[in-house]
């Protein structure tokens, strides 16, 4: 198991280096005259040249990359070119915000999907069709439309929530919960649709297995069979879908954070990419890649815990 974890972590490191190299190259291909973009239209050519030199932009690209990489491995991701804030500080102040949205949405997706999926698989007939319809709708309606609808109804008209902004948990746990409720629901709806279908299918398959008949014949209650045995077998594929959903939600958070003006990684990613803030974008790429690698590793470990066959393989 330890060797498996180390192997996965090593491949994760390689993946992060490769992704950061590609991202660095792409950023420079499309970034144009960065010093001019930082200074704007009124700056003179001399000032622009001075700025470019001060940022080291007149050095060869590979030198700039190696310079960035040598600092990055020591945890120094540099300073934003557009706000002057250290990149590490910019990311650490925001990563918890985005993770609270994405983890919240993932948890809600999982809980609601299990309830709906099991209900549809056990009842079939109209509950099954209803769940199918809900799933298709959840897939079909874009996340930003759901977000806008939620704001309109629950914030603007009913005043139950604030339409924009974020409250730190440390400031007010209640305020924090209120500030993430609508964004989390907006993010979760798409996820619920995908995972529900997966759980429904897996549970239907599992219910046809011989061991279920055996368990029932031994007098176990239907709920115990479902929630202790069937779900354990059906959980593997659902977890894989959840992992994909989690990574997808990191992307979905970009739009939701913009609509709700939430200071997360997604919001800053939009701004930094538009501006060509290379140090900040590189930092975001690395942190996002680390999150994805860690989540996938955790999912693998969880699957191994749920299904001994995975451990043996």
């Amino acid at each position, binding site marked *: 198991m330890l060797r498996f974890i180390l192997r996965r972590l090593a491949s994760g490191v390689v993946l992060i280096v490769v992704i950061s190299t590609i991202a660095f190259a792409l950023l420079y291909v*499309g970034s*144009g005259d960065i010093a001019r973009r930082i200074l704007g*239209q009124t700056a003179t050519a001399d*000032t622009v040249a001075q700025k470019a030199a001060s940022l080291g932009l007149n050095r060869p690209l590979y030198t700039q990359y190696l310079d960035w990489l040598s600092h990055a491995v020591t945890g120094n991701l540099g300073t934003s070119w*557009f706000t002057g804030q250290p990149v590490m500080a910019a990311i650490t102040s*925001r990563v918890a915000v985005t993770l609270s949205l994405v983890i919240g949405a993932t948890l809600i997706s999982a809980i609601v999907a299990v309830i709906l999926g099991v209900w549809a698989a056990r009842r079939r007939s109209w509950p099954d069709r209803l769940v199918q319809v809900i799933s298709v709708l959840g897939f079909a309606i874009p996340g930003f439309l759901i977000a806008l609808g939620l704001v309109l109804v629950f914030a603007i008209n009913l005043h139950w929530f604030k339409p*924009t902004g974020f409250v730190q948990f440390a400031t007010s746990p209640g305020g924090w919960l209120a500030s993430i409720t609508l964004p989390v629901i907006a993010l979760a709806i798409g996820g619920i649709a995908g995972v529900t279908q997966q759980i429904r299918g897996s549970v239907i398959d599992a219910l046809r297995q011989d061991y279920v008949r055996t368990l029932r014949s031994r007098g176990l209650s239907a709920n115990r069979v479902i929630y202790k045995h069937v779900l354990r077998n059906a959980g593997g594929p659902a977890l894989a879908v959840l992992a994909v959903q989690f990574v997808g939600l990191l992307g979905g958070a970009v739009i939701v954070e913009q609509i709700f003006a939430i200071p997360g990684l997604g919001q800053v990613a939009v701004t930094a990419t538009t501006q060509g803030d290379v140090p900040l974008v590189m930092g975001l790429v690395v942190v996002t890649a680390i999150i994805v690698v860690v989540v996938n590793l955790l999912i693998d470990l969880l699957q191994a815990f749920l299904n001994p066959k995975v451990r043996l393989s």
Partner: protein
Amino acid sequence: MAAVAVVVALGLTGCAAGNSDTSSTGGSGGTLNLGQIITVSTFAAAQSNWANESPYMQAVYDTILTADTTGAIQPGLATAWKYNADNTVLTLTIRSDVKFTDGTALDASAVAQNLVRFRDGAGPNASYLANMTDAVATNATTVTMTLKAPDPAMLTYLSQNAGLVEAPSAFTSPDIQTVPVGSGPYILDTADTVVGTSYVFTKNPSYWNPTNQHYDKIVMSVFSDPTALLNAVKGGQVNATNTLNNTDLAQMTGAGFTANPLELNWAGLTLMDRDGTVDPALKDVRVRQAINYAFDTASMLKTIENGLGTTTTQVFPANSVGYDPSLDSEYTFDVAKAKSLMAAAGYANGVTIQMPSSALLGQATLTLIQQQLADIGITVEYTDPGNSFIADVVGGKFPVVYIPLQQGGDWELIQFLISPTAPFNPLHTTDPTVEGYIATIQKGGSDSDQAVKNLNKYLVDNAWFAPWYRTQSNFVTDANTTAVVQPGNAVPYLWNIKPKS
């Protein structure tokens, strides 16, 4: 996309030719929730921006001079200022009762150091002080600025970012970009601030000018997304904000907000290649005039800006001494006239011109330009320089560009658009007439105003530009807040945003 959003997105400076009126005197206290459409790029005074970033800077810093809501220069940290006979030495008398928030005294030496740092700081507006040979403190309350040549805009620059005064103790601070140390009416609360998203300022208890402190606390929240901004307005989360477009204005006023309009920029074509360096056709004034006749500016204003703005043929704003209303009818929409001018110039069979395009400028506008110029025989071929848009334009790669541009004070506008060294005169076109007017304006004195008038008329007659209209932008305030727009700036000055009495 509205012009203001284009301005922000392309990194342009939005400046306004606003109207002026008297501000009501409000109460004080409480919190001002101020919406911002742009984050602050840096709190380091020497590299600072202005325009949409001015509220951030005015919260924490004082400026050497200030400007009132008519644009007239008023005292700031300097209680008096005086030029010598040929306007090359400016003597400033600095207040002696001001302290920075770190407790150190603000004196003439601090002011002089800030001026030199701004000039040498490679900031976006460092060129404002490029004309300054030196700034020295001759005693604790006197600063002497020496200029290479007269600069009619210098006093205005000193009321903006070139006049910001930062504590010398902060010059060597590693946090200089994010933790300001100034003498302003508010102090940045770094603990509650989320850089790039929301900035919290608390009242400076020992501020020397309490009449400019209308609130106990100011929270500036950044809304780069129009939907988020509209929702914040509807949800009552901001008391006042600049707007990202005019599309949502009706919904904002419907939510009980008051629109404070200002004409921010002019939209139209800058015909940069007046010597025919890149495209020989542009050298002929008749071709440039034909381009002016080609546009149905009234319809364009209606289509692109929902009618919010004023058609014009002039790049000088309505509050300029050079502005002449009669010039606005110089070029009416007249395709036949345009075609005959093209034929007279030898282009009866048409001509092709290269222009830069950007998705940020709005595809509809770019298509309208193409269609209307095609009607007079000019084929527009667009190239999208991507993120190099500004660099390529000010690098002189294109003969003509469509971009909304600022309308500041007369001398600033000349330095920005017209002089041979202006960034938006990248092909350095000039002629003795223009040079003569600019020299007269620079010297100041009784001939200056007439020279601005003459210069403006000359530019219109010789079609240096093809302006369509001045675009209107709106700063909105809720029922409890008043604001007076600031001529020459994208947003009102901070002390002119007040609680309604």
